């Protein structure tokens, strides 16, 4: 009896395997918003993965103060990332909200067959399509809407990615992020303000107003910078939704250890910039070596600096001076003019990071000494002195204003006229007050003369009358 029961079970199992999907365990995948990705797959056998994806037409900021009507898979640009395993059967439920205005569908580049599923999934508002496909080949694949006019649907943000993990999985890393580039075409100029309509002619001419990571100017900067720590392996699932531009994707300050070019099986090593086509992807791995900010850009640079294609990875951790030293800046020319070089004169050639303490001496040494020198005597004719400075003593408010807003043009200090540029300093009110008081006491026989509150008032006044 027991024996025949066992036989029956194995027969059922064999039948299930012969049927392909009948015996597969069913998994409902939980989708998360970018830049997050679903967790790595630990399964060692195929499954039937059910994915619910809802098309949402939403109005939101494309840049601070400028809004746009995005068409999205799951409410975000890019759409929610789908993560399955090679050999899985994927049951995709595509919902089109009844409140939407347009029909939509989905073409997944991971699908083998006509239209990548597009003809199977065309849904009017208020309807849903269930489409099942087998993820035959591993890779990182773009999906997108393929409803006419396709350029407009994609141009409004209707793209995302599906990762089909290889059977053996991907190597373990410390962090994974999901970033997609896209070009956007609005009637008004970059950051024009208000609600901007889609500009069909600009799209046809391939002249984007915005080139963005994750669908918004600032989606990955400021508060939204991607966090990391030193010595971590980072994996970026990077895609280009287009509709038109190819990305010259680059991480300023990092060498990519591995790039699975075009989202495929093989990787190149030690890559500086990788080309990602519209409707294509790359799996990028690199190691965070030193603290500071790594900047994601499209190295077609006016896209980065004039159209928004910038993201940041904020790396925290201890300095590694043997990998990344401090720049020592001095006057060019004969040795006699060179200032005395000490550790305290050194400063990063990049805009300085925010000092850790509000100690005036620390701020002075990390920020001011680069130009004004550790002695505060400046460099005659180039950088004015802060020590024994009549200008400083008589115009402490003005000194604070210069630190806040920078200064360009002629200035006379101790009878010598200087004509150069000082950039605005990214310092807090406390730091500015501390450093000015330090300079006052240390180099001008003065006393504590300015309060953080006064600096705050000056900052407010400057903001009101720039």
């Amino acid at each position: 009896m027991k024996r025949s029961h066992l036989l029956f079970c194995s027969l059922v199992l064999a039948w299930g395997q012969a049927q392909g999907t009948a015996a597969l365990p069913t998994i409902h995948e939980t989708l998360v918003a970018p830049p997050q990705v679903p967790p790595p797959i630990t399964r060692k056998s195929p499954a039937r993965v059910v994915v619910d994806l809802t098309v949402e037409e939403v109005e939101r900021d494309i840049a601070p103060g400028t809004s746009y009507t995005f068409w999205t898979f799951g409410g975000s640009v890019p759409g929610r990332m789908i993560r399955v395993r090679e050999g899985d059967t994927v049951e995709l439920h595509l919902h089109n909200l009844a409140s939407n205005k347009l029909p939509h569908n989905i073409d997944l580049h991971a699908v083998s067959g006509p239209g990548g599923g597009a003809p199977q999934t065309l849904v009017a508002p208020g309807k849903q399509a269930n489409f099942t496909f087998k993820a035959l080949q591993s890779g990182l694949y773009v999906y997108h809407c393929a409803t006419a006019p396709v350029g407009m649907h994609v141009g409004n943000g209707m793209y995302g990615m599906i990762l089909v993990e290889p059977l053996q999985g991907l190597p373990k890393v410390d962090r994974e992020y999901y970033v997609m580039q896209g070009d956007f075409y609005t009637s008004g100029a970059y950051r024009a303000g208000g609600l901007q309509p889609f500009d069909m002619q600009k799209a046809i001419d391939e002249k984007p107003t915005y080139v963005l990571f994750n669908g918004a100017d600032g989606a990955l900067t400021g508060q939204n910078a991607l966090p990391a720590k030193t010595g971590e392996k980072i994996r970026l699932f990077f895609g280009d939704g287009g509709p038109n531009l190819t990305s010259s994707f680059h991480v300023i300050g990092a060498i990519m250890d591995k790039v699975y070019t075009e989202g495929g099986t093989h990787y190149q090593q030690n890559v500086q910039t990788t080309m990602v086509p519209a409707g294509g992807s790359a799996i990028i791995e690199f190691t965070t070596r030193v603290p500071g900010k790594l900047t994601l850009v499209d190295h077609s640079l006016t896209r980065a600096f004039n159209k928004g294609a910038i993201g940041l990875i904020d790396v925290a951790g201890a300095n590694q001076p043997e990998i990344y030293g401090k720049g020592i800046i001095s006057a060019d020319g004969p040795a006699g003019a060179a200032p005395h070089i000490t550790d305290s004169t050194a400063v990063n050639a990049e805009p300085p990071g925010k000092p850790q303490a509000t100690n005036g001496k620390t701020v002075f040494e990390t920020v001011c000494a680069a130009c004004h020198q550790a002695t505060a005597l400046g460099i005659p004719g180039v950088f004015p002195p802060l020590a024994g400075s009549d200008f400083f003593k008589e115009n402490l408010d003005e000194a604070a204003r210069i630190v806040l807003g920078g200064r360009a043009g002629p200035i006379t200090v101790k009878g010598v006229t200087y004509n150069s540029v000082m950039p605005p300093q990214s310092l807090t009110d406390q730091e500015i007050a501390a450093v000015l008081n330090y300079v006052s006491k240390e180099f001008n026989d003065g006393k504590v003369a300015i309060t953080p509150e006064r600096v705050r008032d000056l900052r407010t006044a400057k903001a009101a009358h720039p």
Partner: protein
Amino acid sequence: MRAIWLAGLLLLASIQAGAAEYRPIPGGEFRTALPPTDRPTVSLPPYALRALPVTQGEFLAFVRQNPQWRRDRVPALFAARGYLDDWAGPTELGKIDPQAPVTRVSWYAARAYCASEGATLPSWYQWEFAAAADASRADARDDPAWRQAMLDWYASPQHGALPPVGSDRNVFGIYDLHRLIYEWVEDYNGLFVNSDSRTQGVVQNLETCGAAALSLGDRQNYAILMRIAMLAALDGNDTLGLVGFRCAKPVDHR
């Protein structure tokens, strides 16, 4: 004799009083956004088109006279869930403006309504020809400003109730062909448009129309392409909040 003639005239007038206005459309050689046939243009005979989309009030009157089209009596085959479900009751509009265009009506219901006016739904070509016009030109389709104005409606989500019909008149005296609702056409499912609109080629196989390829005739007219995409996504019993209709007649039956 004269009295009989007068009586006849009065009778006619009383019928006409409640009747919808149809306007003559000249037709002619026409460049369509649909896949080209063996000729660059299609030839469209003259026809008459309803000046205004059918309103909620007009459809309510139709339902009262034809109770088989009440939402609580219509077979699901002819009208899916959602049919007229914004009404307060099966024969009651509630808060809905009777002058707003009726939507949430199936293709079957729209056809039945048009038959009650002695009309039919327009063909796609009839709709497209009239919709090519703006307030001063019979064919404004190559004007980028006109295109953009059409497009902006599609690109902005619908907030709140639909406004009344009759705000946007074109040179033929037809109102609201754009920027108010989508409209059913008689041959909505015979446009030979593949639901994957990118397919290329010139396959025009009538037997496999679902798989027939689309090579759109006017790739720059995004606004019209979106109409076509919507119609391609619909089934005859679908009842969408933005899909209404108007009717057409042969011109000599006016």
